[in-house]
């Protein structure tokens, strides 16, 4: 089969409509996913490990399959292509809609290549997705076939590892690495592979800041490092940077600022796993021209001038109480019947395949 290097725009729009115009979103057929992934791979081959971006741009943290919250982000932050987006990884695992989330992002990236940037998180990996849900989800949604998981995890190998914004902000999924003093060291990595267990590439997606230390320390995660104040000061200084923006850690308020804005965590999955009750945010970087100046003080959000954490809570649909309300998929049926069947006729149009244990 010959797969074209470009997908015609009407075809992309059709895929986007499948996902965006239906509740619940429609799954794209396996062949479509294959084609989308293949095309994006060929395009990503030309993209450097660190994408040079310009402000304004809105930075998005972990999504973890929370599709409806992703749509909420496009509501509050503006929908593509009207807003530039940089996604910091962790699109899949944990949530119910990992497939829909990642396929939507892939289709948007292909449709608006200059408006959407996707980098790699620690969950964009074969090992992690087999352990944390994405693999099981694909098996469940594609009638026992893992093909789609294969296409998508192969694509993950092509995702860049970071981005710079106006050369002043460095954005990556996790954080810094003791093996890396210069951005150029990241630029020279051969990134087209599964995330290794250690080394710069692993550390970028696994590390966390730690306000209580100065130097590097082994991470309790078993991969990556904890990095302290001196590390980030030196890294920024040596690379002409003002700030590190990263994701990777759940925060109750949706964001955390460390060291007076030197490092920011942005977390974009509200009410994580349907139960954490946390807020989420996206970081809007309007302008970086003030950075580095004398007045470059952080405000009460702990961000630098020209930046704003747009905080949001679980999308009304996702937050809806199953027991009382109507769910996002109309699953909850009518609320007037005496014997309310909360789960209505969801999926009745589809042929149900019982979980194999219960055959």
């Amino acid at each position, binding site marked *: 089969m010959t797969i074209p290097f470009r997908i015609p725009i009407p075809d992309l729009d059709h895929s986007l409509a499948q996902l965006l115009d239906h509740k619940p979103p429609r799954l794209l057929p396996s062949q479509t996913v294959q084609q989308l992934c293949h095309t994006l791979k060929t395009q990503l081959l030309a993209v450097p490990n660190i994408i040079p971006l310009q402000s304004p741009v809105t930075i998005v943290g972990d999504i973890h399959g929370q599709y409806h919250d992703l749509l909420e982000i496009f509501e509050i932050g503006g929908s593509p292509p009207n807003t530039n987006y940089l996604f910091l990884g962790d699109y899949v695992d944990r949530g119910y809609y990992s497939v829909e989330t990642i396929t939507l992002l892939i289709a948007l990236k292909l449709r608006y290549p200059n408006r959407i940037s996707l980098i790699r998180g620690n969950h964009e990996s074969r090992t992690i997705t087999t352990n944390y849900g994405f693999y099981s989800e694909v098996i469940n949604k594609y009638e026992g076939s893992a093909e789609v998981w294969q296409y998508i995890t192969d694509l993950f190998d092509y995702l860049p590892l970071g981005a710079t914004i106006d050369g002043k902000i460095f954005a990556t999924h996790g954080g810094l690495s003791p093996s890396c003093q210069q951005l150029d060291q990241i630029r020279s990595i051969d990134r087209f592979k599964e995330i290794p267990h250690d080394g710069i590439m692993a550390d970028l997606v696994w590390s966390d800041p730690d306000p209580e230390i100065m130097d590097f320390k082994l991470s309790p995660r078993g991969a*990556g490092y904890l990095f302290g104040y001196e590390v980030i000061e030196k890294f920024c200084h040596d690379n002409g940077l003002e700030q590190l923006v990263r994701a990777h*850690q759940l925060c109750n308020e949706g964001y955390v600022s460390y060291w007076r804005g030197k490092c920011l*965590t942005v977390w974009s999955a509200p*009410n994580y796993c349907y139960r954490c009750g946390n*807020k989420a945010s996206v970081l809007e970087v309007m302008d970086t021209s003030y950075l580095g100046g004398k007045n470059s003080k952080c405000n009460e959000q702990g961000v630098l001038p020209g930046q704003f954490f747009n905080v949001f809570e679980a999308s009304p649909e996702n937050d809806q109480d199953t027991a009382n309300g109507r769910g996002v998929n109309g699953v909850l049926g009518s609320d007037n019947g005496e014997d309310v069947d909360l789960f209505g006729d969801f999926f009745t149009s589809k042929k149900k395949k019982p979980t194999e244990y219960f055959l």
Partner: protein
Amino acid sequence: MPQGISPSKKIFDSSDLVRFRKSIAYKKIHWILEQVIEKVKGCEVPPGILDVELITKTPRSTPNRGRNTEANTSTTLPPPESVVEDRPASKNANFNGILKILNHLNSLIDETPPKEGPRRFGNLACRIWHDKVNEGLSTIVEENISIPSASIVETSYYLQEAFGSSLRLDFGTGHELSFLAFVGCIDGLVESLTGPELLTIFAKYYNVVRRLILEYNLEPAGSHGVWGLDDHFHLIYILGAAQFNENKNTGKASTGLATPPVSSVLTLRVIDQFKLRNLYVSGIAFIYKIKSGPFNEHSPIIYDIHTTVILWSKVLQGLRKMYEVEVLGKFPVVQHFWFGNIMYPWRDIDTNKDLPVFEKEEEETPLEPDFLNGTGVMTTRKNISMTGAPWARR
């Protein structure tokens, strides 16, 4: 009679599962499970046992439960449970003893309020609770349960392990398994109890665990996200499904209300009717309490059961098969199941010889929870957990 020794780790990597399956311990777990299932068939949890507060959704509290600790404490938990005396005492001393122990553990939760401050996933006060429990546990077991003194060490061990990990501040199916093992440590207990009495023991146990989960914000120990059966439990669904199965001895189904059709169990009406009578339904009610969002999204596997399976016997059978694979057959779960020399020995079922142990540098579970500290601070502490690297060694 051999002297009991403190159980030790024998399962070091997934290849050890083969030996686990050949062990006396493995056979014994199945034997106990089988016994309990048969006993509880057609029975209901007696009234007043399951704590209704723990499985009833409170009006949706604001999603941000972290900041306002004042309002926080008031919404959470029921008053301390009344003491065991007001329950009709059984003639079985061990039954009464177990309830007394569980009540004691429950009252220790009252004495150990969660620490204030920004909410972290896994409240550190839980560790204090574990310390208090572990301090005198074997004495309490000895005082309240009559078992040969040689088996006290092991019996206390499995009980101790049944309430989650003090280190990781999580709770999962492995801990639930440990409670089953504890029940199996007491010779003749299951045989001598009635179905409702057995259900009382398990229900009281689930009361304690649910309080721990809610009060200290314990994390799910497994982590397939929404693609697991439940964040914390599996056995409870097996026992509850057994309750909805016909009891061969009494020849009738449920002693009280008519058994609800499988397809109706996710409706509010059935949940309200059965959540205090049936462990399965109480499990569903607990999911409703802790989660928000469409049920078919946050619990797709359970949702599937109720849209595709018709007979309770099939539900029971399916859950048991699934338990075999997803709990007893999963290295990340059973690596934490340790083996003594009396109750659950690491010995070959056929030859009664010790099974080999291939000790190695510990391979850490890939199924680490990842609700990393709510505030993003304190990452140096061992107290937090998060997405761990599957290849991590520690």
